[in-house]
């Protein structure tokens, strides 16, 4: 639970999810930012103006129809709390911000981990991109994993095998 350990429940997660139709159309940004942190780089980072915020301490609102899934906000978010999701039939792609050494390589098989770091399924690394943040010195690696669609809402981390 958010107040206890900082984790959204699946009910919390569902409140920020795009429609099934949008999830199937291509990568789309989904945030797991549920606290009133005074912070707005995601709004400034979006090249198509798809993210809005009432005031500095509000949660972001992502216009999923406008979102192109470019990943700028995933790299800009100081809390590493934005992900890209894409449901491709039986499979799903999950893009995760990653700031550790020992980067995975495309084609590699890794362990998909849930929000508690528990292994949930096998995942294959589709893409690894180093993307500049708002401050161009600060790159953040975006790792795109492919998993069974059933685990799309669970996998938010990975461990190299």
């Amino acid at each position, binding site marked *: 639970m958010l107040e206890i350990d*900082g984790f959204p429940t699946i009910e919390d997660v569902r409140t920020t999810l795009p429609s099934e139709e949008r999830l199937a159309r291509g990568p789309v940004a989904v945030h797991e930012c549920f606290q009133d942190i005074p912070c707005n780089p995601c709004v400034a980072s979006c090249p198509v103006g798809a993210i809005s915020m009432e005031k500095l301490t509000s949660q972001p609102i992502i216009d999923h129809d406008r979102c192109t899934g470019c990943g700028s906000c995933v790299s800009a978010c100081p809390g590493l709390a934005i992900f890209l999701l894409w449901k491709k039939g039986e499979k799903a792609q999950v893009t995760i911000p990653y700031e550790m050494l020992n980067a995975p390589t495309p084609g590699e098989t890794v362990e998909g981990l849930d929000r508690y770091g528990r292994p949930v399924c096998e995942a294959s690394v589709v893409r690894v991109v180093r993307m500049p943040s708002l401050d161009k010195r600060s790159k953040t690696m975006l790792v795109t994993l492919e998993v069974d669609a059933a685990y799309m809402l669970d996998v938010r981390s990975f461990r190299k095998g």
Partner: protein
Amino acid sequence: MIEVDVLVVGGGPAGMNAALAVADAGATVLLVDRFYKLGGQLVKQTHKFFGWADRGAGTRGFHLAEDLAQKVKSHPNIRLLMGHELIGAYADGTYIAATWDAHVKIKAKKAIMCTGAAERMITFENNDLPGVMGAGAVQTLMNEYGVMPGQRYLIVGSGNVGVILAYQLLQAGAQVDAIVDVLPKLGGAYWVHAAKVQRLGVPLLLRRTITGVYGDGRVEKAVTVAVDERFEPVPGTEMEHHVDVVALAVGLMPLADVFQAAGVKTVYVPELGGFVPWHDELGHTTCPDIYVAEDAGGIEEATTASLGGTLAGLTAAKELGYPVDEKAVEQYLKSLESFRDSSLSQKVKEGLNKLRSGEHA
């Protein structure tokens, strides 16, 4: 002897912003810091900062420090005295800064104290064994000096300092056995900071505290125990952690002794971290020539420290007769208010209200 308009003590975000505000207004500044490098705690932070996108949010802490230090170093009105600690403050505006073997006498019309805070420690069996240290010490060794003090860590305390340390340790390739906290819920860390550490496999063990560390000349093992609702240990719930470092992240306490030495009134406000100098939002204390900017005036974070530093700097410059843009002051005050318009600032706001109201006013 060094004579200046304004002495700024502390080269963190508050001190650097205070110095820049004073110097921009035209006054001369001496900035003293006991470390060899400017930046304060910002230097140790690898994460991108929260806040306003148009004012540096999304920039990593050590980059924010570099940007500010560059401005401070190149400002013609700012003189730096690094590696010196303030050891004396006298009523006539004389201050003494010293190294281990020399001292410098300073004469300043005004002083802005941005001395920051010190880490709290807790007691447990053998807590003087090498390997037990403050979270800040681990960060200094690891991020400033490039020395890893150990390989496996137990972190005590789940505020932002504790969870950010856990994340930095993982980034440096170390192992984090667990974060323990005696509270039944996160000890103040932003949910997103706590989430990003736990999804990398670091367990958060709540309602659990450390009872001792054991080893031959250095920490080889730590023992923790679960606690009940009254924070009493529950027998039979002991857990052994095979770690070589125990990092304590159990809170910060404002460094208020310099104010006490100078005769400034200090007040005990638990919400602000302990004894703090009485002060208003412009940085005035009970002494007309001494100003404060946090965390020395209350534990908060880097954005509010920067705003507080600028406000204290503008105020000191104005009261020395230098021209200051009043609209800018209003704007900084408004920014501070909108930044604190969050449940996360509730405690600080309560503390400041307590400090500024009633018997302490």
